[in-house]
């Protein structure tokens, strides 16, 4: 309010703020000057002041002693399981902490699950990627041209690394799609030879080849 408080209507309109001490200093001065001269407005000011004081006093009186909020807050946080997590993950750079925690958790998971998988998965005919497990054979995917995918979990087969060359020659199928497969056969690892052997079986079976595998089933 920048207007001057010269008229009674202006002054009475300002009384709610005047009663609470919320007028600007110059405004308050102008109102006070008017009140000093106008008995009618002084009466209105008194009413405004009384009602405001009543509001404050009764409001204050109705607010009892502050209860202990911390116990309730803490109990709720514990119930939500947040007390140990949120503060740790919060704060500046928290994304770095999260990333670090995530990496650590992933590493820990790998350390636990890889050895477990190494022990459990072979029983189900599944190889662990990157592991040179003897006699572990992966499920064979379907090949282009094959009528149906053949998933043939094989039993353990001992392979002498020194006999890899003999093995590839022994397992060379006669199917028409085999040439592409065996073109790169010499470049593959010993473990992959086992997978290729299974793949070649699929080609053979898919074309009703007469060749028989030896020592497989």
């Amino acid at each position: 309010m920048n207007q001057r408080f010269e008229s009674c209507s202006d002054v009475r309109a300002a009384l709610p703020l005047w009663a609470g001490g919320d007028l600007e200093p110059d405004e308050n001065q102008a109102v006070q000057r008017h009140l000093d001269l106008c008995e009618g407005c002084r009466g209105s000011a008194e009413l405004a002041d009384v009602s405001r004081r009543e509001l404050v006093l009764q409001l204050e009186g109705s607010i009892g002693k502050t209860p202990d909020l911390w116990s309730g807050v803490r109990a709720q946080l514990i119930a939500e399981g947040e007390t140990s997590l949120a503060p740790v993950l919060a704060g500046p750079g928290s994304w770095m902490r999260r990333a670090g925690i995530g990496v650590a958790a992933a590493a820990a998971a790998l350390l636990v699950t890889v050895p477990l998988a190494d022990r459990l998965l072979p029983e189900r005919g599944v190889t662990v990627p990157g592991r040179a497990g003897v006699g572990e054979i992966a499920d064979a995917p379907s090949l282009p041209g094959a009528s149906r995918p053949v998933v043939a979990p094989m039993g353990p087969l001992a392979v002498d690394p020194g006999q890899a060359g003999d093995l590839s020659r022994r397992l060379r199928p006669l199917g028409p799609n085999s040439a592409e497969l065996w073109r790169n056969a010499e470049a593959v690892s010993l473990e992959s030879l086992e997978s290729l052997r299974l793949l070649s079986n699929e080609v053979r079976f898919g074309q009703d080849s007469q060749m028989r595998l030896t020592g497989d089933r």
Partner: protein
Amino acid sequence: MPETSLARQKRSPDRPGYTSQAMTARQDSAAQSQSEAQPEDRPEAEEAAIDHELVRQAQAGDQEAFGRLVQRHQGRAWRVARGMVPSDEDAQDLAQEAFLRVFRSLERFDFKHDFTTWLYRIVTNLGIDWLRKRRPARSLQAGLEDDEPGYDVEDEAGALPSDALEASETAGEVRDVLRTLAPHFQSALVLRELEGLSCAEIAEIVGATNVTVRWRLHRGRKLFQEEWERRGRTTERLEQPGGGL
């Protein structure tokens, strides 16, 4: 300008908004200072610095630091909550919910602002939400924008429950009248009259301009006075010994 002793106390540095822990912390920090005359704003600055440090510690995982924050400011949260909602139970729930929200949002705290401002904002918003959910539907539209001219009290006394009308406690009547006001008016009055905050501080808390806050105070007090006079309580008070100026 008439000013009650209570209002004068509100505007002093050691206003009731400070908890006993805050007083102790301030005394400890000022223990080496032998001067009794401190700048008016220094205690608040020290308190703000203490709060910021506690927030940092809480962000780093110090649960005890967060507990200290709660204990330092639970008085504020309680008073604002209780000033806006009619029952102790609801007010306690509201105040606790405010601190839970503080905890969940700790990492987003902006250190450019005081913790008290942030807490007040959360509590006030929760109070406004609480009031809006429990107000009659026809009164909601009047509470949307408080700077609209022509806003008036939504409910006449005849719409209030009969047991409230018959209430003999003055405090109960005050609350009855307050309940007729829009949530924004109530929150402005509570922050101003109970907490002694300035219009500028309230403006920062509620996200409004200084002018808007002054308008809400003006309308809130005016509407309260009109209803209070309608009930004959103002005249009653004036007739009591020492009831006037």
